[in-house]
């Protein structure tokens, strides 16, 4: 894959994103990949003059991730999408559709997950940054 990949954790996600923004990178998108029954992977893609940079965040399915939309406004759309399709909840979203971007109100499942998981309230929160 083109560009450097950095593994990060929940606690330094926002810090890294802010640093990347200062370096002049633009937000491209977030890709969510389901690894197994418990783990999910969020890949944050950034771009500067066609040089890509990726942040790889491994996250437990029932964890709430911090939203990077306060840093990169454009991220709100894709985070809402992941919320809908993979069931990972984000907190601090600038515009929160609350899982109704694509889904109807009464849908509780996450349609893109192979391991059909019914949404339950997240049990772990990331520590204060």
């Amino acid at each position: 894959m083109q560009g450097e990949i950095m593994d990060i954790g929940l606690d330094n996600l926002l810090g890294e994103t802010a640093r990347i923004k200062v370096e002049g990178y633009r937000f491209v998108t977030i890709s969510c990949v389901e690894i197994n029954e418990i783990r999910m992977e969020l890949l944050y893609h950034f771009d500067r003059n066609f040089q890509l940079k990726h942040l790889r965040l491994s996250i437990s399915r029932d964890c709430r991730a911090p939203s990077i939309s306060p840093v990169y406004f454009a991220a709100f759309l894709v985070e809402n999408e992941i919320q809908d399709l993979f069931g990972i909840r984000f907190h601090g979203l600038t515009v929160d559709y609350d899982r109704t971007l694509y889904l109807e109100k009464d849908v509780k499942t996450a349609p893109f997950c192979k391991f059909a998981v019914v949404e339950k309230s997240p049990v772990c929160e990331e520590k204060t940054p």
Partner: protein
Amino acid sequence: MFEKILTRARMRSPWMLHFDCGSCNGCDIEVLACLTPVYDVERFGVVNTGNPMHADILLVTGTVNHRNRNVLRNLYDQMPGPKVVVAIGACGLTGGIFRQAWNVVGGVDRVIPVDVYVPGCPAKPEAIIDGVVMGLEKFMEKQHVDIS
């Protein structure tokens, strides 16, 4: 006598309403292309109204999903009778290549009754015009049902 004139007028003045119900834009753009110089459906009196209250023919492109089915139903109910529904493209007929996707309900006829099916991926403008003309013939049949 008046019935005859009315049927004739109906055949010659189909006002269409186009609803993109989740198509890939292929058929969608072809429907619009029908209005433009090369195909020019206004020759047959077809006018794109955009307002369900004024329309006679509903052209639906694309698959039905869980969210737009209500919109489609709503548009159909708002149209005053007699009305004809033309489903356009492989997706509008059965769901086409998307039928196994998770958010796809299937063809248009899962939600509203369809009178004419226009196949193709995307359907060509000629086929769409042909579908509209076949829809007009349905007006005749509907007319007879109304009278009897």
